[in-house]
């Protein structure tokens, strides 16, 4: 129990670190001076100090929604696979609940975009609605496939099971699921080629456009939420697709876990550096690939021997 | 003898079909009714049925003489056009009339072995022929004559197929016939009023 709580705390606390890490790697690869890894914390700290300015046009929603953007994600953290085996964890929560919680967060985020009557918030919400509508089926299908491979619908249970029974018979469907899930990580977290988190051109952005009218504490909440969201996805990815090392003692296991996430961040940074952002209406093509791979994963699981 | 009269009955009907003059049509109708009456008299002699005698006489008097006369009077009174060319081409009519006769025999074929059943086919044939009479004329008088011919066909059927209908029914039919004439008269009158 205590280890699980520590794990959750680590996830919350280290969340901004990994986003900064990606950014730093990217800058380093582009021969820029990389930003310090603690930049994310600095940003948050600055935001907390600042005064909140609420748009004149905004309603109660702006005051409430940021909490509801973050709270579902924090709740979702409770259901993450544990870093070590034999530890107490919440194992019964399945893909549908998890995606539901993520969607709840996105729902309020989109409302924020519409609340301040600015055209850019609308753009952001509209695009986010479009992308997340297409992400949701892919997400559910992937996790469904994984839970079939792991023979358990619970996310945490499945991760544990994958560690003990590595699916050597279903490697094809396992790989397909990995590819699909990876694309979904990019899409859900607003990474290139779906969205550019560092863009300064309003017309091309998705996530940033929605929060354009937020400031101070509220912005901090939303930023923290996006960091935690990345953490959730990264945790899911590493515990599903590299289910190694959780047999180790807690501290070693935690270290392995963090290393895996850092490695994942490195890959994402590499991809971001090497690809251009897709036009909005090309995005479905990428998501379509994810969905098809998810389907393939399911079907090959069935076909190649259940 | 009955055969002969019925044959003549049919031939007057066919002739009426080809007539182009109104008064001639009345004449054929009268003759048609008279042959029918005569056939009925023959039947009466054969069956000795009083009812048949009465209807035969009524037919002779009423349909054979009175009605053609009345119609002529009407036609004079209302200045009716006397030239009534049939609408169906002669070429078609020549085919149609025998075809109808063949058809009725074909229709009755399953029961032709029963006595007197060929009369049924003949009367169905005359029913169809009088329908043709109605079809081929536009003039109201010709249509009415067609209708009356049909009545004759009915009588022929009743007389030959059933060896005489019940008296009461026969009288009812005659009553209705008269009624029809009254109505026809009224219709004409209103039209000319």
């Amino acid at each position, binding site marked *: 129990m205590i280890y699980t709580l520590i794990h959750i705390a680590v996830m919350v606390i280290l969340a901004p670190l990994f986003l900064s890490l990606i950014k730093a790697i990217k800058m380093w690869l582009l021969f820029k001076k990389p930003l310090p890894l603690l930049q994310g914390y600095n940003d948050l700290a600055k935001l907390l100090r600042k005064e909140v300015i609420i748009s004149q046009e905004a309603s109660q929603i702006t005051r409430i929604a940021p909490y509801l953007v973050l709270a579902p994600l924090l709740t979702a953290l409770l259901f993450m696979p544990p870093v070590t085996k034999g530890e107490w964890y919440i194992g019964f929560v399945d893909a549908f609940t998890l995606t539901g919680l993520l969607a709840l967060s996105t729902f309020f985020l989109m409302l924020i975009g519409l609340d301040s009557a600015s055209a850019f918030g609308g753009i952001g919400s509209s695009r986010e609605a479009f992308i997340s509508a297409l992400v949701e089926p892919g997400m559910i299908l992937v996790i469904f496939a994984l839970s079939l491979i792991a023979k358990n619908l619970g996310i945490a249970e499945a991760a544990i099971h994958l560690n003990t029974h590595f699916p050597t018979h279903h490697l094809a469907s396992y790989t397909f699921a990995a590819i699909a899930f990876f694309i979904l990580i990019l899409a859900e977290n607003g990474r290139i080629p779906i969205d550019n988190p560092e863009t300064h051109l309003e017309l091309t952005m998705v996530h940033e456009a929605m929060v354009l009218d937020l400031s101070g504490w509220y912005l901090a909440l939303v930023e923290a939420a996006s960091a935690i969201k990345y953490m959730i996805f990264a945790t899911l990815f590493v515990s599903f697709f590299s289910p190694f090392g959780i047999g180790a003692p807690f501290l070693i296991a935690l270290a392995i876990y963090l290393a895996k996430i850092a490695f994942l961040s490195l890959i994402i940074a590499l991809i971001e550096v090497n690809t251009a952002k897709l036009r909005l209406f090309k995005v479905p093509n990428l998501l379509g690939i994810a969905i098809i791979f998810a389907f393939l994963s399911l079907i090959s699981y069935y076909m190649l021997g259940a | 003898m009955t055969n002969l009269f019925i044959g003549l009955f049919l031939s007057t009907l066919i002739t009426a079909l080809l007539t182009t003059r109104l008064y001639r049509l009345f004449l054929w109708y009268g003759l048609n009714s008279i042959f029918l009456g005569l056939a009925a008299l023959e039947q009466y002699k054969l069956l000795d049925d009083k009812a048949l005698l009465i209807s035969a006489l009524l037919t002779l008097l009423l349909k054979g003489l009175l009605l053609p006369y009345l119609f002529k009077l009407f036609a004079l009174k209302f200045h009716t056009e006397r030239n009534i060319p049939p609408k169906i081409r002669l070429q078609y009519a020549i085919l149609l009339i025998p075809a109808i006769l063949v058809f009725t025999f074909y*229709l009755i074929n*399953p*029961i032709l072995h*029963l006595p007197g059943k060929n009369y*049924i086919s003949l009367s*169905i044939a005359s*029913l169809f022929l009088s*329908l043709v009479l*109605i079809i081929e004329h536009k003039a*109201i008088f010709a*249509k*009415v004559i067609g*209708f009356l011919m*049909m*009545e004759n*066909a*009915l009588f022929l*059927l*009743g007389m030959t*197929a*059933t*060896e005489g*209908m*019940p008296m*009461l*029914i026969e009288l*009812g*039919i005659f*009553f*209705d016939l008269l*009624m*029809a004439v009254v*109505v*026809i008269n*009224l*219709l004409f009158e*209103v*039209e000319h009023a």
Partner: protein
Amino acid sequence: MLEYLFLPLSLIFVLSFFDVQKSKKYLPIISSLVLVPTFMLLFTPDRHYWHDRLMIDDLNKFVLLVCAIVGIAVTLALESLRHHVKISPRHYRRFYRFFALFWIGMILSVTANSMGIFWVGLELATLSTVYMIKTNTTPFAHKEAWNYMIVGTIAISLILFGIILIYASAKPSLGEEAMLFTALKSHISRIHSAYLFEIGFAFVAVGSFIKMGFFPMNLWLANIERAAYYPVAALFSGLLESAIVTGLFRFSSLAKELNQSHLIGFTYIYALLTLFVVAFLIYRVKDFMRLFSLSGIEHMVLMLIFWVSGGYFAALLHFAAHAFLKPALFISTGVLESRGKYHIAGALKGYKGFKGRLFQILVALFMLAIISLPPSPMFFSELFGFSAMIDLAKGSHHLLLMLFGILTILILLSIIFYKFVDVYQTMRYEGEERSKRVYASEVGALVLLALATLALLGSFDFIEKIGG
């Protein structure tokens, strides 16, 4: 008791030779006197009159009662005919005279046990309607009167032809008795030549179908009802058709005993054809009169197939419901069309006062009742009728074919349903609101018919007994 039925009618006939304008207040009262013997007949056991040529059985009693109510309603409505159309006193008197004759013929043919008497009554009724149509003095009416004269008499002649053939087929074994429905029914197995009988039945059926305006004569009836004054149409649908349908019921139950599959095949094919054409004609209809007369044809078809399928209760209920509803609608067309023939839009708008409101509500209800929405008796009759048809289909060798036929009928009925809903909405909610006058006599007639329809709902047991 039967004799008394003719008494009020003869009285109307005699009165019509005197000044009707003065006596017309009494006419409805006189005609409602018919109810007295009708009701008394209702409680007398089955009886035969005049050497079995006339008879009173359950079916007759029922039909007589229905006809009496419709007749009274029409006499009531006739009172205000002058307000809606121009009519000279002389023509008015003649109208009444022929109306009385018509009714007498009707009663004769309904109560007939002898096929001959049935025919005589029918012919009497038919010929007297010719003049009733002619009361309207337009050239169109004149032409249609002649058409009715010719076609009606041809149809009637075909019926007689059939009757003679049936008589001929049965006479060798039954003698003079062969003219009587009852005798035929009880000795049907003794008929030698079933083929002759069937040919005869075909003639009777064709004649009756023409008279009822089945395919391909559907336009004819609609034209005539269009040409005549609206009470004539009401009489047509309420009385004349009733008489023919009753006769057809009797003939078809004979034919059914003889060879059921032929009868079913024949009527079903015919009914499908007719419904097919009628449904599409209704779909394109543009005035009330044609709408109602075409739907009258539709209901006749339904009654007939219900009857031949063995749904006697359904057929009778449908018959009675139709006999009440359709004349009511026809009577109301006098008011509905007071702005001109083709003004469906807004026809049911602009009624003021108690009479007007009542009229509006009643007509709206009648419109909905005629498309068999509950709780109209037609809803139940159609339900039970179709259940009889399904029952028949299940017992037959051509289950799928029959089911397909029934489904087709139902779908065609829903096309008609659509049109009626369309017309209902158009007359109620579209068009401009213009005031229209409604007269007490019409509303009275409608109320009477509405009450009669309601009474039907309570008399299922009674009707069931007749069918059984």
